[in-house]
């Protein structure tokens, strides 16, 4: 097992490269979920403000 992680002495390079790959792709996939949440909250806010405006006499 240690042999596997050592990667013939190149372990540090290989595992850093793979870590970058996973972290960047995970962040890239999560970003639109946060963006969607913000957008929908924004739309709800706009609706609420308009309702308040229309409720006024």
């Amino acid at each position: 097992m240690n042999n596997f992680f050592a990667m013939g002495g190149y372990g540090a390079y290989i595992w850093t490269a793979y870590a970058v790959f996973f972290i960047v792709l995970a962040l890239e996939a999560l970003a639109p979920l946060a963006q969607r949440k913000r957008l929908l909250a924004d739309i709800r806010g706009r609706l609420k403000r308009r309702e308040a405006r229309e409720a006024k006499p």
Partner: protein
Amino acid sequence: MNPLLLWFHKFGAPPTAYHVAGKIAPWCYGLALVLGIVALYGGLVLAPRDYQQGDAYRIIFIHVPCAWMGLFAYLFMAANAFVALVWRIKLSEVLAMASAPAGAAFTFVTLVTGSIWGKPMWGTWWTWDARLTSELFLLFLYFGVIGLHAAIEDRRQAARAAGFLALIGVINLPIIHFSVNWWNTLHQGQTVRLMGPSKIDSGMLWPLLTMALATHLWFFGSMLVRTRVGLLELDGGKDWVRTIALAEGTRA
């Protein structure tokens, strides 16, 4: 209307496209994960050691698929931008802009993993040669497209301006592809070929191709999720978006 046009109008309509994208995206992500794990096992455990580079070559299993994806995502973006500019199809505008962030992410990973691979093999993290410089330029093109799209208030004008920039940038794709043949470079030549035999052991080739398939699926998953957000943004004032916004508001 002929059936093809009818089909196009049906699936091109934002609410339909939104729901269809929502159905497909999880399958893309799921399949990408399964294939990715298989490819990682094949690449890191089963594949033989390279006679010249030892184990360091194993970075190829992410570096090359990511590099392909950087180009593929750009082509996909430019093709959709072209359709959007010529036929003014809303969905194409959204699809084009939704593929930019994933493409940028893959290009970034390509540059970083390449740099990490270059240090032990070439003795340097970076060199200003044709392949590396044109790939860096690709990343800047993505940033330009994303930045231009974010900077313009009107969503449709923003998509058109950014799409135009994306189309101009297509000129960079053949430069990247042929850079290793046209100029002297530290970067190794093409290993995997569509035409003719690849210069690689089959025990190394199948994990590489499986990972390429996985990254394609991952790209489509991410692109579709972003397309959904883009459609919500574009139709922000419409009833179907309000319904979704209010439904998620009561749940939260």
